[in-house]
């Protein structure tokens, strides 16, 4: 701000700021020309359903990453939620009780992660690597490695329900996203989350209970894994340790593509949702174009690396230009 004059944002910078939106728009336009049926409502609904289930978890991951932590165990927590929910539903036939208990179990798992990370000061990567292994073991022991399924009519109705053309999954995702975004942007809790991730020592000196913030972030993650597990059950009416093995890393990828820095302290959940949308659209587009699964993964990996490189380059430019 030399001479007190505010520098105008140049068009190029505005463009770079919205990398994800531009990429997304580009893809959709490209697909609209290559395969017009890609834009049909049923396909878009499919995309939104996938975005919703993974997006719920990715929103939690964003809060954790903003907080300066990380959770690898989400895939196992997600499996556990599916299995527990189906077991409870089959045993009690009571939707309300099953949902509440599944969410509580998610909360407990999240709190355990948080306590190990904050009390024993073990790095969250290795903590959640440990708990991931243990929860996965728990799931396998519990089910004997078999798939579990339910024939509950209510869950079937929810999975196929149509609210003004929008699916149940998407509505849940919108609610989760709205609650979390408002919480991050407008509440004291949210500001403390940013402060904790931005500079933990300064936050601590400013009187923020950073251990509580982190544990809370882990517990939110746990509850969201519970919600995502229930959503998957509503979609498939089955649960297995095979579903969601790539969840953790896909969520991290979506968060990073959305522009949340891995070093913590900045980012938001809405952009993560955009990142997840980009990943899913890309994935579906590749399937639509008839590429083999191997090529899809190849492209997915390359895009991930490129976006991260691009994003870092842009943010570095911005720091330099200040």
């Amino acid at each position, binding site marked *: 701000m030399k001479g007190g004059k505010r520098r105008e944002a140049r068009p190029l910078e505005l463009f770079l700021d919205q990398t994800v939106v531009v990429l997304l728009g580009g893809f959709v336009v490209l697909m609209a020309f290559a395969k017009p049926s890609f834009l049909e409502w049923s396909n878009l609904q499919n995309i939104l359903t996938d975005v919703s289930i993974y997006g719920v978890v990715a929103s939690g991951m964003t809060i954790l990453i903003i907080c300066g932590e990380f959770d690898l165990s989400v895939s196992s927590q997600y499996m556990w939620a599916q299995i527990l929910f189906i077991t409870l539903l089959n045993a009690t036939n009571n939707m309300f009780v099953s949902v509440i208990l599944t969410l509580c179990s998610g909360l407990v798992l999240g709190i355990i992660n948080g306590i*190990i990370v904050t009390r*024993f*000061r*073990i*790095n969250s*990567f*290795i*903590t959640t*690597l*440990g*708990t*991931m*292994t*243990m*929860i*996965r*073991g*728990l799931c*396998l*022991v519990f089910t*004997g*490695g078999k798939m579990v399924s339910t024939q509950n009519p209510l869950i079937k109705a929810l999975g196929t329900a149509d609210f003004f053309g929008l699916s149940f999954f998407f509505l849940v995702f919108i609610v989760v996203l709205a609650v979390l975004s408002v919480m991050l942007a407008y509440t004291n809790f949210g500001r403390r989350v940013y402060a904790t991730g931005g500079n933990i020592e300064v936050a601590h000196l400013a009187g923020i209970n950073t251990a509580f913030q982190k544990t809370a972030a882990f517990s939110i993650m746990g509850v969201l894994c519970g919600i995502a597990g229930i959503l998957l059950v509503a979609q498939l009416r089955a649960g297995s340790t095979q579903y969601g093995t790539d969840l953790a*890393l896909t969520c*991290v*990828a979506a968060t*990073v593509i959305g522009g949340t*820095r*891995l*070093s913590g302290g900045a980012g938001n959940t809405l952009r993560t949702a955009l990142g997840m949308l980009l990943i899913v659209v890309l994935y579906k587009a590749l399937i639509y174009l008839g590429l*083999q*699964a*191997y*090529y*899809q*993964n*190849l492209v*997915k*990996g*390359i895009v*991930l*690396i490129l976006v*991260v*490189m691009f994003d*870092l*380059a842009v943010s570095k430019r911005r720091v330099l230009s200040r």
Partner: protein
Amino acid sequence: MGSTMLAQENDFRNLGTRITRLLRSRGVLIGLVLIIIVASIVEPAFLTASNVLNILRQASALGIVCLGVTFVMMTGGMDLSVGSVLSLCSVVAVSFMNKYGQAPGSNGTALMAFLAVIVIGFAVGIVNGSIITILKGRLGETFIITYGMEIVVASLALLYTRGQFVPGTFGTGLYEKAGMGFTPIICFLFLALVMHVVLAYTGFGKQISFIGANMDCARMSGLKVGQLRVITYGICGVCAGIASVIVSSRVYSASPLQGTGYELDAIAAVMVGGTSQSGGTGGILNTILGVLVLGVLGNALNVLGVDANAQLLFRGAIILIAVGLDMWNTIALHKEAAR
């Protein structure tokens, strides 16, 4: 009278502190010994020569991967691509052997295959390292970049074989011997020795540890941080390549999914050994200990007849306990130093 009582009490307290200190600094080693003792009492078959050899043979492939990962983690980075590097190298090497090494005693072809895996591993590592260096990436960036590379390399392995499993049809010779008898163990120990000497006693090793301890400081001290990091990732890739030879030779086949899970196992073993994730502390000896703990635990649980699914619970717990002990030790040492 009173003073002797006091002295005795002091002795007791000293003994207590000494035991605590021993437990927290050598906890993993003590745990390893305990697992061995318990397993051999409950099941005498555990401590037979053939089983011990079996454990070591099984541990050596993971061990070699871990050696490279230790280097990377010493610089404060992370390499998640080793699993798929292992897959890619094994399918390429076995396909190559199948094509050109049908005749028994085809050692020349085997040497070519060894060269190929080293080149592939090194190339992937260099790409990883270069991207990370260009970005001046910290732990988080190394994580996400090498994860991207993991996906890319895994799909290359799948593309190479069109998703097929590659059964071995090559003749006897060096490649076929690489996974048999004492070869994997000797190979692991030799590499471990070399890398231990490099890491602990050479300037290169000390520079790597310095980068992990404080990257900015290392850069300002005039170290070529970028170059060193690229080389480190290259070494890590080479280690994964070498491990692929042992794995594919042992099972006399290759699969594009052979290396799945190796990256997390390797990180777990390195951390159980006590190399910290933030870089700078630890070493090859720690990693050998970590590899042994996970290997012995797995085998002991198998011998004791624990269900493979339930083993995951033990595995996770061991990781958490080992790293918790390490953290306890670090904090206690800091407190002692501050006193």
